[in-house]
């Protein structure tokens, strides 16, 4: 217990809290700027099991703010979930860290999130968050919303059956183009650090069952403009479709393949849920001579004159060099097959 001595001395956690942490399972969705901070805090704190779900791989532009990654991860072309899990195991081998290189979607959300003691939001879009909200409400799993952009961000915890859910607070996501995105506003590490550490504190409270200490409010802050606001959330919205009417619109949209434009990346993601795993070495052999092909156990990279396709074993692909879903789908269909 030497590892946790200072934390156990803190009366809010103590030995009982530490034991609860060691028995707990958390799922982190999205292992970018927010996610790496959340994972770092919880693994150092002595969580029992951490499952990291992330669809992306490490790139140099991540290193400015994504605290678990380094140049080696780029040289090895590692998926974020795998790179983070390796680093976290070196930090604390007592925690079981399981990387899941996948996109959270309607087909896999329940299997990944049900049964968790807490779900952590490290995502970058509202579609995935509404899906997490649905799955967590359905299975009674508390989760913590967190988001940051530029120098500002917001966070609040959601406890099914108790507090307002994400759709109570934000009934709809902003329409594209109405608010700044990561391309237009950028992001600085301190904003992400503050917001994600506030979210991590809520996760710790949930895991050690200090529910009476939960910050039942939306915290909105800006580290550049020096604002901090704490806005009481009150009760759930009486007609909320998700938490009051039990209608899980995002979870129930169990659709076929779909595409998602990645914010500010000139990249479109193609997802094919429910497909058997791809053998990357076989695909590499098939693509031999088509373009420049490299692969490791976690991903295959096909470089074409104007595009690059990164294929993962779950049949998902990132098509770089376009923002047009139709182009991405066509390239996927041509080289991977739909």
């Amino acid at each position, binding site marked *: 217990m030497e590892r946790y001595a200072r934390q156990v001395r803190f009366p809010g956690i103590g030995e009982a809290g530490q034991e609860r942490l060691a028995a707990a399972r958390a799922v982190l969705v*999205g292992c*970018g*700027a*927010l*996610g790496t901070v959340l994972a770092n805090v919880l693994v150092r704190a002595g969580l029992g099991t951490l499952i990291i779900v992330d669809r*992306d791989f490490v790139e140099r532009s991540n290193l400015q*703010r994504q605290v678990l990654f380094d140049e080696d991860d780029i040289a090895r072309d590692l998926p974020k979930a795998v790179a983070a899990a390796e680093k976290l195991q070196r930090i604390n081998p007592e925690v079981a860290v399981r990387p899941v290189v996948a996109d959270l979607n309607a087909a896999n959300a329940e299997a990944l999130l049900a049964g968790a003691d807490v779900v952590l*939001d*490290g*995502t*970058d*879009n*509202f579609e995935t968050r509404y899906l997490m909200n649905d799955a967590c409400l359905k299975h009674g799993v508390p989760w913590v919303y*967190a*988001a*940051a*952009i*530029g*120098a*500002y*961000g*917001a966070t609040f915890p959601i406890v099914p059956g108790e507090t307002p859910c994400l759709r109570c*607070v*934000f*009934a*709809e*996501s*902003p329409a594209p183009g*109405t*608010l*700044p*995105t*990561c391309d237009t*506003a950028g*992001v600085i590490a301190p904003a*992400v650090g503050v917001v994600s550490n506030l979210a991590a504190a809520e996760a710790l409270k949930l895991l050690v069952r200090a529910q009476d200490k939960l910050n039942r409010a*939306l915290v*909105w802050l*800006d580290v550049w*403009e020096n*604002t901090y*606001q*704490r*806005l*009481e*959330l*009150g*009760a759930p*919205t009486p007609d909320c479709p998700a938490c009051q009417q039990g209608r899980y619109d995002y979870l129930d949209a169990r659709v076929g393949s779909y595409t998602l434009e*990645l*914010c500010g990346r000139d990249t479109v993601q193609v997802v094919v849920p429910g497909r058997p795993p791809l053998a990357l070495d076989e695909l590499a052999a098939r693509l031999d001579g088509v373009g420049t092909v490299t692969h490791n156990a976690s991903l295959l990279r096909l470089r074409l004159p104007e595009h690059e396709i990164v294929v993962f074993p779950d049949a998902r692909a990132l098509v770089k060099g376009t923002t047009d879903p139709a182009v991405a789908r066509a390239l996927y269909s041509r080289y991977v097959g739909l």
Partner: protein
Amino acid sequence: MSVRVRIPTPLRTLTAGAAEVNVDGSSLGEAIARLETQYPGIEQRLKDENGELRRFVNLYVNGEDVRFLQGLDTALKTGDEVSIVPAVAGGAA
């Protein structure tokens, strides 16, 4: 009735960078209308084409969500503080 409106970062491009703005209004709807005359374009960030509050922006009067007050009809008095809190999507992935 002069009230203080706290403008969130993403809307400050419309207020010439001002983080707080004082406007007159005896109700929230009136205060928003005044805000619009001073800073054209801000109203449509807060209200949809039917004149309803947008579902991804929350408004608070003295820290209380106006959904639990009287929405745009919520009465205001001098010294009240109105906060505008839009949804934040980024996760800086």
